């Protein structure tokens, strides 16, 4: 692979490259239901969603939005370098929303023989409403001396 990311190249305060996803279509909920096995009709059936209080109909799977964040992360750090990834679901996403994933490097240190970088991530919609806050750590290679 070409542009390998090295521990030395990452600085605290650096931005995680942004990723824009969407606008989300209802069809994507159907795809995600089938892929993930989460068939809660809250995500695919407008009548059901309205009956349980969602006035605009279906809402996105939270895990789909976490998947967008995972896409943003592993577009930047190689998948095999990812050590930990956690999120808090802060708000509901609806079809039509466009999700912007961004993040910041908050710490880097060597631990148990690994060169770890720690980052915060956030997913917001086009109006700036926060859908997910989270963090991840990744073990990066050192440049060969």
């Amino acid at each position: 692979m070409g542009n390998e990311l090295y521990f030395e190249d990452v600085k605290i305060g650096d931005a995680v490259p942004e990723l824009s996803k969407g606008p989300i279509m209802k069809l994507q909920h159907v795809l995600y239901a089938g892929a993930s096995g989460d068939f809660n009709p809250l995500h695919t059936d407008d009548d059901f969603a309205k009956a349980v209080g969602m006035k605009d109909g279906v809402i996105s799977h939270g895990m789909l939005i976490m998947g967008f964040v995972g896409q943003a992360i592993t577009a930047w750090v190689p998948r095999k370098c990812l050590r930990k990834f956690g999120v808090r679901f802060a708000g509901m996403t609806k079809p039509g929303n466009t999700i912007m994933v961004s993040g910041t490097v908050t710490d880097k240190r060597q631990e148990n023989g690994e060169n770890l970088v720690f980052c915060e991530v956030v997913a917001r919609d086009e109006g700036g409403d926060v859908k997910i806050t989270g963090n991840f750590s990744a073990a990066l290679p050192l440049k060969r001396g």
Partner: protein
Amino acid sequence: MADSTQVGKTFDPIVWEVERGKIREMAKAIGDPNPIYLDRDAAIRAGYRDTPVPPTFLTVPMMWSSSMPVLINDLKINFMMVLHGEEEYEYYRDIYPGDTITGVPKVASVEEKTSKAGKKMDMVTVEILYKNQNNEDVARARTLLVERK
């Protein structure tokens, strides 16, 4: 309603054979074009043994095994009042097509909290340590369920 006597309770193991097609399906559903998830040759060129699983793939064995609805029912959590509050993964080893992963869901904690608006909620954390066919730890998943009361 969940309660603290349920801490430590375990459920039937989730046993899941990881398939290349399911990995591709997950990447496509997310809309992730990263070739390592879609194409074995591209994955090998990038230093993997085969197509690795995307970071949130462990939701697949959890949901397809119907473990979550069983667990929610068994813990007497009101399905209509439950929210997915948090999800966290720790990754120990790569997971590839052909691997069989096994995990036993376990109730790690149950806490009652009061929101700023004064509403009471039960916070139930379910933890699953997945092992592969060689009995090696591959990943740990933590799910926080929030039951509004």
